Structures are given as C-alpha cells and as structure tokens.
C-alpha cells in the first residue's frame, strides 16, 4: 500500500514536470579576429542572458557544468589550440558547443599561384590563401576560393629555404551545397623544376556533418625547401546518400599554411 502510494505520487509528479517545456540556450556569441594568428590572439565571448554562465575548455574536451567559467578574453598563443564553449543556466538545457580551433600563421609564404577557381568564387585572387583571414562558413562571402575542377594545383614559394614538417589546408564543408573536403592532397618538393612526391594524404568523407570549416593537416617527413607544390583532388563523386550522388563535389579553400 505504502509503495503504491509513493509510485503513484512519483508518476503524477513526473507527468506534471514533463508537461513543462525545458528550453535550450543558444550558444555564446564569439568574437575573434581570425582563426590564424601571428604570435598570439584572443577570443572573447558574450552571452547577455541573466542567470547564465559561459563555460569553456582549451584542451579539446567538451565543456560541462564543471568546466571553467568564462570571465575575460582567452589568450591564445599555442598552435592548434581548440577553444570549446557552451552556455549553462538553471532550468535550461545547455547550449550546443561552439568549437573554435586556432592556428599559428606558420612559415612566411612569398608567392602562391593556383589553378583558376570557378569564376563566381575567386575571392581576392591567390593571396586569399595566405592572408591570415578566416573565411567563416559562408562560401559566398568572397573569402573563399571555390573550385569545381578535377584537380587543383597550388605552387608555393616560401620567403626562405626552411625545414618543413606539415602543410595545412583550411577547407569548407557544406554538404547541402555540394561542398566537401577534397579526397586527396599530394605534397611535392620542387627543386630545379623537378618535383618529388613527399606525401599522399587521403580523406574519407563523413556523412551529414554540419556546415563548418575544417583543417586538413598533412604531416610531412622533415624536408628543407623553399618550394612546394600541392595537388588537391576534390571529391570526384558525391556519395550514395547525397542528393547529388555520382556528381563531382565542390572544393572551397580559404587558407594554406606551412609548418
């Protein structure tokens, strides 16, 4: 008898509570100059919702109700720092997590040339690829070079001959707009007009990822050079699950870095 009482009461309460709606908070509003920085940069967040807190991490883990509370701009000086932040408040579902990776600007590039992008997505020419500016996630904003060719060839001359260990390609993924990460990146060292293949990096496309910029980091065997060639192969056929299956995907790049 006692038991049934308690169970019934609990059920009734649960029903009453379930009938109320719990709203989710929106993510915090992030402000930063660019994902690419010279010596250091900082990111600030705002979220003017009384009773709420912004919590963040710098170690790549997802923020929880126990993560550090955001109070002032977060200084960043380490290459490949990932800042993750979310909002929390009593009575609300925490927001989705904002993920902001930051990259150092790498070795200075003197010159860069590339196969022509599509006429509609020319950015401000090849310098777009080493201007240290983030392109955001809108492929129409003139900060991205958009390619619909079978391959993209990029020739890079650095300011001086240096030891290099990696090449990074910052690309856009917006699968609904047929924009995918490339399927392959090959890196060549160029000496006296002859090119030597250093590395072949292949990328598996993932299904239904949200629209976002992605960094493709290609590790290289240590090499000293001042000239590189990248041969980038956009995804040749859109996968089975995609509305445009069988067609060629677009490839959008806003920045190339050498480390």
């Amino acid at each position: 008898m006692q038991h049934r009482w308690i169970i019934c009461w609990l059920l009734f309460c649960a029903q009453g509570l379930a009938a109320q709606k719990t709203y989710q908070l929106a993510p915090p509003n992030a402000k930063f100059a660019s994902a690419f920085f010279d010596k250091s940069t900082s990111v600030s967040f705002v979220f003017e919702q009384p009773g709420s807190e912004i919590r963040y991490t710098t170690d790549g883990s997802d923020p929880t109700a126990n993560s550090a509370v955001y109070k002032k701009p977060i200084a960043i000086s380490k290459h490949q720092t990932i800042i993750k932040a979310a909002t929390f408040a009593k009575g609300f579902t925490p927001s989705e997590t904002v993920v902001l990776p930051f990259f150092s600007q790498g070795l200075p590039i003197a010159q860069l040339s590339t196969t022509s992008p599509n006429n509609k997505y020319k950015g401000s020419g090849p310098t777009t690829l080493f201007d240290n500016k983030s392109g955001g996630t809108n492929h129409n904003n003139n900060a991205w070079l958009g390619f619909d060719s079978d391959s993209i060839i990029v020739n890079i001359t650095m300011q001086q001959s240096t030891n290099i260990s990696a090449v990074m390609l910052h690309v856009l993924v917006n699968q609904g707009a047929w924009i995918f990460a490339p399927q392959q990146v090959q890196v060549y060292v160029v000496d006296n007009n002859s090119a030597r293949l250093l590395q072949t990096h292949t990328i598996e496309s993932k299904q239904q990822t949200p629209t976002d910029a992605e960094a493709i980091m290609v590790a290289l065997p240590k090499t000293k050079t001042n000239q590189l060639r990248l041969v980038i192969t956009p995804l040749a056929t859109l996968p089975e699950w995609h509305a445009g299956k069988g067609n060629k995907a677009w490839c959008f790049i806003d920045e190339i870095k050498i480390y």
Partner: protein
Amino acid sequence: MKRRNFIHQSVLAAGSIAFSASALKAYGSVYDVEFGHGNKRYKLNEKWSQADVSRYPVNDCHEMVQDKKGRIILLTNETKNNILIYDKSGKLLESWGTEYPGAHGLTLFNEGGEDVLFICDNNRHQVIKTTIGGRVLMTLEYPKETGMYNNATEYIPTETAIAPNGDIYVVDGYGKDFVIQYDSRGKYIRHFGGRGTEAKHLRNAHGICVDTRNGKPELIVTSREQNAFKRYSMSGEYIGTINMPGAWVCRPVIKGNYLYAAVLQTHSRQGQQSGFVTVLNKDNTVVSNIAGSQPNYTNGQLQEMYQTIKAFSYPHDVCIDDEECMYVAQWNSGKVYPYKLEPIA
C-alpha cells in the same frame, strides 16, 4: 470491490494533488521561463492555436493583425486557407483565401469605419486590397510608372503601410527595395529608397509602418540585411537610421508607445534558427529582447544583439492585441501555428 477501488483512487488523487502542487511550486522557478527584459517580459504559450491541422494547415506563417472586433488574423502562403481568423483564445473562427500562393504581407486599415486588408503576394507580384471577408476591392500591379521596372517579375512586394489620409506605401523588399507611394485609389505618387550606398538607401526593405508615436506621422522602413530601420517623412525624405546590430528585423509594428519587431535571425548565426523578438520604446531605444540578449548600450551605442534562448526558429511578424498580448508568426519553422505571449505584470 468496485466501491473500495473508487475510494482508494479518490484518496490517492487528493494526496497526489497536494504533493505535486508543492513539488511544482518548488520547481516553479525552474520551469516557468520568463522571456524578455524590464517591463516587457512575457510567458510563452506554444499551443495557442486550436486549429485542426488536418483541415486548416499552415505553411509559412507570415503576418498577423487584429481587427476592430478583436479577432486575430493570420496570413499564410498555404493556399488551402491563406487567411485564418482566430479569437484571442486561439479558437479558429473563420478561414478564406486560396489564390495567394506568395502571401507575405498583411496590413489592416480602418477605412471610414470598415476594416480592409492589404495583402502583398510575392509570387503574383501584386498588392491586393480586400474586405475583411476576402472580397477583392483593388489590385495594384507592378509600378511601371516609376520607370524602374522592366516587367512584373522584378517587383516582389513584401509589405504595405496605409497613411491616415489613405495613401498606400508599398515596399518592394524582395525586388528592388523601393518604397512606392500611391493615393488611396491606387494612383502612383512617388517612389524613394531603393538600393545604393547612401544612408537613405535600403537593402531588403522587408517591412514598413506609419509611426505616430511622436505626434507627426512618419514612416519606418526595414532595411533587413543592414540590420536597421530607416525613418522617412511621409513624402519620402530620409530622416535617420535606427541601427539594430545583429538583428535581421522584419516589419516594425507600433502599439502604444512601443515598436515591436520579429527578428528573423541573429546575424552571427545565419541559417541556424536563431530568431527572437525585439521591443523599442518611444525614443527607439531597445528595451527588451524576447528570447534574445539583454539590450546593452555602451557609450550610447547599442551592442550586437543575438538569440539567447531557442524558443523560436525564424519569427517573421508580431501582432500586439488590445490586451498587450503578443502573437508571433514564424517562417520556415516546421509549419508551426503562431505562438502567444502574455505579459508578466
């Protein structure tokens, strides 16, 4: 046996009510979400509409007005019933309209004691004046008199405002962003606004209203992609800009001393169902954002605004009724009926 059961149950029920009432009270502050700021705070009711979705569906809910009988009129681009007429409690009273596939703008005007409606149809490239019951009184075609249009498809009217003297102002918010002024019979008077680089120009002139809060009537026009409202005299001279940083404001709606507007989305989170509702006082200072950030003026400058609570997806219009309750119609939001917000005294 039966009788025992009955008694047992009623005892249980009584006990449960007492217990759960206190339990709910304890959790009350957690679950009773207050939206907005200052003296413009509201409780949100998502289940206001009692319309039967199988019989009276909606697509995009674009705009809402209240008529002189106190009824709430909704315009949707669902051609099964472009107009749904509700009472304030959400009971559907009437429906009409099957010929407005691009139904977008809805304005009500009291014309010598009679309510009339002005519908902007994006697809038909027309403005249609009707009686409250749906009888067509006048159709305004594309404004070739302006000399700015080659054909009707360049003209995609989004909103109208009617001056006290009956002049009709149409904004071509999805076309060339002109404001076109006609007399009450539909005779072209002038046009202004349009695209360009000067302050008087517009970008996505999505809404317009006549503002009589400061005595002398003037026009407030939305420049949505610029996140701003722009003020003009009734004859089209540019007066000034009300910056709404971060907010894709839809049409301005005047009620009492306040200006209300649905914010389709947050500028920094475009395409992510990041809308809210904003409220400005008589001085055009933002005093409340419903499901949005607390308004913050630093050195007199309004700081960027954004959604804070995911209560709305893409709000497209608000209507404030005679009891100060707010109705929110949404675009591209899963075909939801309008929500109602009741002020917190």
